[in-house]
């Protein structure tokens, strides 16, 4: 049981968000073109911020977010009788007549072609506190215009809209949790493949021996959000593996700004997949049975893992198998479509996406790493 603390004084507003990012992750506090406090981060961290928090790049007049654009599965085989629930996203689709074909998707490989500046140079996150609900597209357009008027390059900025109320803060909390767990050596995601009727978690973190393999092959710099594996074709990675024996494990978090997450966490507990379950921020009151990630009065993360949960060993074993396949798709995301199709899609009769899935699931993890490494050269 997590011990009871007095309720934190932190209100999740623009200023506290900046402090949380600065104090916990060392992101530099800078001034935006309008003289307001902002956060500067590397292109890699900005990608993570957009991917998880949803903040759009001002790479075009109407902004572009990476959130929800790079999905591969919306349901995992371990929870669905061995069936994977694939969905377009990282790999795209097009329809010709009554057939669906694979197409260029939203992988970083293609985003880099569409918005070449996205993955290069430092980026500044502008925090815009809205007083009333405004059309997000129009807010982005106005900022794009105003930045240009200040003789600055909009491509170097992301625009985070902060509401006055507590709403729309869950994604920020998920980003904080993701950064925290990355540092602790976990792969993370906030678009967790679960079927909708299983209660899709807000956030998941994975301990896996695959992390060291990915680091050794320079696909990742260190533990990171899963989609970042597909950025190896852009970012150079020089990290060092841990060389520790790691067992597969899943941690699930639920981000809440108003009500508590007890109901959802109980559902996850019943399922028996996660070794630890925790609530993120919430109203910071006493919780029972589960962990809690919150902030102290100095904006520092205070994480209490809570009690270890009993897991279903067979389920966990099956999930580890699924997870290995899952990661192989993100490795493949480093390549252009023609190279992917050349290797995995050869039949004119069978559905292209189905061929891709089946063949990727057949190839070993090592062979997939070797193939992608070779093709990236």
């Amino acid at each position, binding site marked *: 049981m997590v011990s009871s603390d007095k309720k934190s004084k932190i209100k999740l507003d623009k200023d506290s968000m900046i402090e949380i990012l600065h104090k916990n992750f060392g992101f530099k506090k800078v001034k935006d073109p309008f003289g307001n406090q902002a956060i500067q981060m590397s292109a890699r961290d900005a990608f993570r911020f957009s991917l998880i928090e949803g903040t759009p790049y001002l790479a075009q007049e109407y902004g572009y977010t990476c959130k929800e654009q790079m999905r591969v599965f919306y349901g995992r085989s371990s929870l669905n009788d061995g*069936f994977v629930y694939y969905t377009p996203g990282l790999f795209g689709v097009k329809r010709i007549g009554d057939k669906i074909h694979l197409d260029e998707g939203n992988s970083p490989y293609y985003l880099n072609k569409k918005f070449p500046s996205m993955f290069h140079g430092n980026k500044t996150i502008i925090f815009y506190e809205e007083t009333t609900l405004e*059309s997000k*597209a129009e807010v982005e357009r106005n900022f794009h215009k105003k930045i240009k008027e200040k003789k600055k390059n909009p491509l170097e900025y992301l625009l985070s809209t902060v509401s006055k109320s507590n*709403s729309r803060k869950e994604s920020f909390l998920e980003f904080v949790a993701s950064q925290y767990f990355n540092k602790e050596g976990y792969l993370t995601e906030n678009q967790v493949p679960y079927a*909708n009727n299983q209660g899709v978690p807000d956030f998941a973190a994975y301990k896996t021996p695959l992390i060291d393999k990915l680091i050794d092959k320079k696909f990742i710099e260190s533990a990171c959000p899963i989609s970042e594996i597909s950025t190896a074709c852009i970012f150079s990675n020089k990290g060092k593996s841990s060389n520790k024996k790691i067992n597969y494990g899943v941690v699930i978090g639920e981000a809440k700004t108003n009500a508590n997450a007890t109901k959802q966490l109980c559902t996850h507990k019943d399922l028996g997949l996660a070794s630890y379950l925790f609530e993120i921020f919430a109203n910071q009151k006493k919780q029972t049975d589960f962990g809690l990630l919150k902030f102290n009065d100095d904006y520092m993360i205070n994480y209490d893992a809570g009690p270890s949960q009993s897991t279903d060993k067979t389920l966990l074993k099956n999930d580890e198998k699924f997870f290995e396949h899952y990661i192989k798709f993100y490795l493949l995301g480093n390549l252009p479509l023609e190279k992917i199709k050349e290797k995995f899609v050869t039949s004119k009769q069978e559905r292209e*996406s189905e061929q891709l899935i*089946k063949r990727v699931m057949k190839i070993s993890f090592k062979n997939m790493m070797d193939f992608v490494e070779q093709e990236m050269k």
Partner: protein
Amino acid sequence: MAFGSDYRVKYLMRDVQRIVTERINKEGFENPLRLRVFDEDAGDNMMWDKGGLTFTTSDGEKAGSGDGAWYVEEAWTDPISKKKSKSTPILVIEGTFGTETGNVGDAQKTKLSHIFELPKRKILSAILMPKLAEYYTSGKNKKKSPPTFVQNGWWMKSLVMASISLSNQWKCETMLIDAYNKKQLEALVYALAKQQLENNNKNKEYVEKQLDEIMCEMSLYVEQYAKDFYFKSRRSDYPLIIFDLPMKNGNVSSKWIGKIHSDDVKAFGVTTGKNPKAKQRHRNGHRLLGNAQELNQITGKNVFLILPRWNKTDLKKLNDNHGDSQGQKEFINLIQNKELDILTMDDIDFGGDKVLQKEFKRIRKVGIDLDAKLPENDSDKLKELCVELKWGLYKKKYKIKR
């Protein structure tokens, strides 16, 4: 945060706006069209005159909201609500990629309610969704082998028919646009932008050409289905539509038709509390409302939702506000619409056939006692009973007590 397809729809619209703006800039003009789109439902749910994406029904109730809209910065008075706004809506979009994740079938029909109120205001609107999508699901029940089981999810033909009918009724297009064919939406938005720049004959014709192409594709798609629509339900067990509804006086109603649905009152969130997941899992009020609205739109007739698993007590519970908030909203929209109504088993004269009535009563009780879905044998039985009721009504063996 759970998966949602809204982000993709909203960013697809942004992408279209970017491309159109670039094209117009190259021609030496500024794009007169603005894009109103929010990342959260709260913005969508605000009324148009307050800067949101929601319009009212004729009764002044909130209708379904859109996902985004192209507009111009010109004063506009809503012809229905008479509210004044600084922005004139040009094209409102309701979108979904839900078919990619298995939200196929009746779930699509709920989309109609999001654009239903627009043509009467002479606002163009479109449902943006893949014409054909593949969706992956579990093949266990179909005895398929893992790891993949894929099915096709097409635009629902009755939805396309209802959209065409709505367009014809109000002489203003309500469209279905293929979300995998971004160029079609781009061409339309570009044409609308050009028309706003200069409303001459050439630009007007260009808009009409784009609209015609979209409407033609829709018409072609449902050509055969539309021909069969009135015959199919008279010839086959499904759909459970009764076009010749015998009333109390023995005559077939000239105003009303009926559609049987096997849902019980959990559809609108009335549960016993025994099963905490019942409210979420069995919520189908939006689907029932969508079905009734669609049939009403296609046929121009008033529609009874015939719910033989309900009795008058169930109806009273909803009248007494015992459903969940969403269910109550849908129920109110249904009963306030003079062209729609609900019939329970108490509204059906089963004649001498006490067995059928008794079976509906029994199955109603099973579902309510369990507060969950019916066991397989009762579920199968219910399907048979609904078909029996349909043919009994067609043969005037049973009547509606009205």
